[in-house]
């Protein structure tokens, strides 16, 4: 099944939305949760206090908003494209996460991890050259 130009364009556009808003949401969540501190025990009262503090954080809510935008783009693209296409194709986001983690959270990223991210991107490139849709609409 040869995909039309329009199908490819709208698929790429929504995946672009996913790649931007997904990592942004992850980084904002991480920053918000790190500010709350580590979950030390599994006691229900401790879990309650942990999640109460998490959901009182504006950064966490900004992350949730960003992830909601990601989710809308995600379900829309899945209305026509294969899951086994969208899922790997959107993994360009891993490079974005690493860059944001490095730039915003000052996380250390080793050469091996950068190499791993490059391999992930190569996999995405290969998947991206398959047809976005293999089932009948």
């Amino acid at each position, binding site marked *: 099944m040869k995909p039309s130009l329009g199908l490819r364009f709208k698929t790429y556009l929504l995946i672009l939305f996913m790649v931007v808003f997904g990592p942004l949401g*992850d980084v904002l969540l991480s920053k918000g*949760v790190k500010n709350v501190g580590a979950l030390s025990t599994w006691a229900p009262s401790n879990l309650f206090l942990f*999640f109460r503090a998490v959901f009182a954080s504006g950064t966490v809510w900004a992350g949730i908003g960003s992830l909601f935008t990601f989710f809308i783009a995600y379900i829309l693209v899945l209305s026509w494209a294969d*899951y086994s296409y969208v899922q790997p194709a959107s993994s360009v986001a891993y490079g974005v996460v690493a860059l944001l983690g490095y730039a915003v959270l000052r996380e250390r990223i080793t050469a091996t991890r950068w190499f*791993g*991210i490059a391999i*992930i991107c*190569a996999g*995405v490139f290969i998947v991206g050259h*398959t047809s976005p849709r293999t089932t009948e609409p």
Partner: protein
Amino acid sequence: MFRETLFYLLIVVAGTSGELCVTRAMKTIGEVTDFRPMSLLRVIFRAMKVGWMWIGIGQMALAFFALLGLLSLENVSLVIPVTALSYAFGALGGRFFLGECVTPQRWAGVLLVCIGVTLVFIGKG
């Protein structure tokens, strides 16, 4: 280590199954061709009436809380790539649960993604 492993498992297994269910729900809605805000809202409301959507959202919510717990313990640039192991589950689910044609080329891409994930894990600083 047990906590981290459990969180990783929940993120990969519940997260991927949830996404597969959401995909099945969206496939019953049909291809979205009108992107005006009101049309999109109608699509979202229609999707929310499909049972698979709620099963999927429930599992994705479980994976989300596991992600929150894990992010309090590990760096985001490690956590997110490691969860990419779900690609192998995803390709299998796409083939057997959704009936997609996962070509050898697509499998090769998935394999590369999994290798990349392993490297990211090994390269933990």
